[in-house]
């Protein structure tokens, strides 16, 4: 993965130096979210891609899910692609956000603001404690430790010893306690904007953090942890910082996810969910500024669309995970840089 970075660097630098196109980047950056925000107003049919017009509640729901999962993928890539931490328990923090929202709304009178506050507090404290333990070991042992804590979360949710999570059935949000503009089919557009805002904010925070001084240390740890240690910095503290930031953002995404899905469901706690995040990040291109974002959007869309098509496709093709799993294996073997590397490859061909 590292030599991939080294190889691509010369291809990027000359372009940023080129004068006439310098304005293009900020314009595109501003235009894309605005365009995405305008989607609910577009009454356009997109044949093959979506079943209904873009502004219809069904399509907006899919788009909202895509935004939320892309946000989670971006937080995951902060760990995996930029700090070099392979976590198999990232779904735990999404579930933390989802279930905290559900539990506070169902079992207390704190209301929606109380739920947000609880998510914010737990989203900081839980990853701080668990990260401090898991980061005691590095590499693969870290991956297994996070997997184990993720599994503990899954057991807690499914077995439900405290009788608060609803077990395998999940927990539906009580609609009367939610803010009016976020409830009901009619407000699918508002929920979509919320999801889009989550994606934009998450992306911006992650970009900002990566550009900061700790962000540079994270990448240095990914490339060579020993060197960071020799330079007199404590990798442990920086890794914990990345872990907490990423998990905190993931639990916020969990909160929004709960609002869009209308409740919390146990699937998020399963190991397969986190493995899905890994597939998204690698699919898009890990360690790339917008790889995880694209991967999250594409994976969630494909997963949904293939699920819809499963009735027409027969045999193994009726399982979205079969297609995505095979696609993933093929990608790793033949296109380790993910979708973004494909784009860059054609770009450099055109430029040359």
């Amino acid at each position, binding site marked *: *993965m590292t030599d991939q970075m080294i190889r691509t660097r010369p291809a990027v630098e000359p372009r940023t130096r080129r004068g006439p196109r310098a304005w293009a980047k900020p314009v595109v950056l501003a235009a894309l979210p605005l365009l995405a925000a305008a989607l609910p107003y577009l009454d356009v049919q997109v044949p093959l891609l979506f079943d209904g017009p873009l502004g219809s509640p069904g399509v907006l729901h899919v788009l909202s899910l895509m935004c939320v999962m892309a946000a989670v993928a971006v937080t995951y890539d902060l760990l995996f692609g930029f700090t070099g931490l392979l976590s198999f328990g990232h779904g735990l923090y999404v579930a933390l956000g989802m279930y905290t929202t559900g539990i506070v709304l169902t079992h207390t009178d704190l209301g929606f603001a109380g739920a947000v506050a609880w998510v914010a507090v737990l989203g900081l404290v839980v990853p701080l404690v668990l990260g401090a333990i898991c980061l005691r070991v590095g590499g693969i042992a870290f991956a297994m430790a996070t997997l*184990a804590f993720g599994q*503990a979360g899954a057991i807690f949710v499914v077995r439900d010893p405290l009788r608060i999570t609803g077990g395998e059935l999940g927990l539906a949000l009580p609609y009367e306690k939610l803010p009016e503009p976020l409830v009901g089919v009619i407000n699918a557009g508002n929920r979509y904007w919320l999801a889009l805002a989550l994606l934009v904010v998450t992306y911006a925070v992650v970009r900002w953090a990566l550009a900061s001084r700790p962000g540079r240390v994270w990448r240095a740890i990914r490339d060579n942890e020993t060197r960071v240690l020799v330079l007199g910095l404590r990798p442990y503290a920086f890794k914990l910082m990345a872990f907490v930031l990423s998990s905190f953002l993931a639990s916020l995404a969990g909160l929004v996810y709960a609002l869009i899905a209308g409740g919390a469901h146990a699937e998020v706690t399963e190991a*397969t969910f986190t493995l899905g995040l890994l*597939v998204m990040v*690698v699919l898009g291109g890990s360690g790339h500024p917008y790889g995880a974002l694209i991967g999250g959007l594409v994976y969630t869309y494909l997963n949904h669309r293939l699920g819809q098509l499963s009735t027409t496709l027969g045999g193994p093709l009726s399982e979205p995970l079969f297609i995505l799993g095979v696609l*993933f*294996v093929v990608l790793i073997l033949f296109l380790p840089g993910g979708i973004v590397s494909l784009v860059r490859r054609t770009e450099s061909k055109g430029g040359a």
Partner: protein
Amino acid sequence: MSTFILLTVTGLGLAALYFLVASGLSLIYGLMDVLNFAHGAFLTLGAYTAWVVVDATGSLLLGVAVAIAVGAVLAVLMETALLRRMYGSHVPQVLLTVGLLLAITALIRSIFGTDALQLATPEWMNEVTEILGAPIPNNRFVLIVTAVLVYLAMSAFLAKTRYGLIIRAGVENRAMVTALGIDVRRAFTLVFAIGGALAALAGALAGVINNAVSPEQGMSLLIFAFIVVIIGGLGSFRGSALAAVLVGLLQQYANFYGAVGAGDLIVVLMLAAILLVRPQGLLGRAAS
């Protein structure tokens, strides 16, 4: 007292399953630094192979034997065709095994359906034998005896044979073994075959214990096997056995005497404690 004995034997039965999965994982990791998620797929494949054979012939013994063969062959295919292309790059290897786990599990689900399938087992396996007043299903003994036999056979293989020596030396210091002119890659394939066979055996035996096979059993067993591997120490065969017994027993006792799901949570807490006090695991080498 009889409850305690029943719990102990059941816990040992569980430990036997964990050991069969974890020992293969641990050896593969120790020798090749590959965290093999596809182990979960071998498990599920083993279970379903046994189901198919039992469904066709009615012989459980034949079913388990075919499952072992299929597990070994698939593991070798995977190692030679896919993993071998990317030795030296650990993360892509792990990702590859993750992709295979997802794809193979989904493939099995699409062929056999999401619901658990009944696995017919011989009558005597479901009958009970009384030990000190505790009624114990015979299939628990089958499990424990199998695991003990595997442990003895593997210990003898690792201690007495040339390939066992190469594997042990490779776990210790792979670069040195290669420098001495020994082709470690053949040992890689061998370890993968053993791991695949043991995982498929564990999958089939899990089917025997539950009297059913389901697409999800591989994943849950795999996660506890991972925990066993870390507690025992990565790369340590004996450590896996010891940790499997500890985890299996603790889980059974706590699940019975404690709250719902307490056993599973306690195992994770035990893992956390190990990571804090002794990150290299019970019998693992100190991290280099």
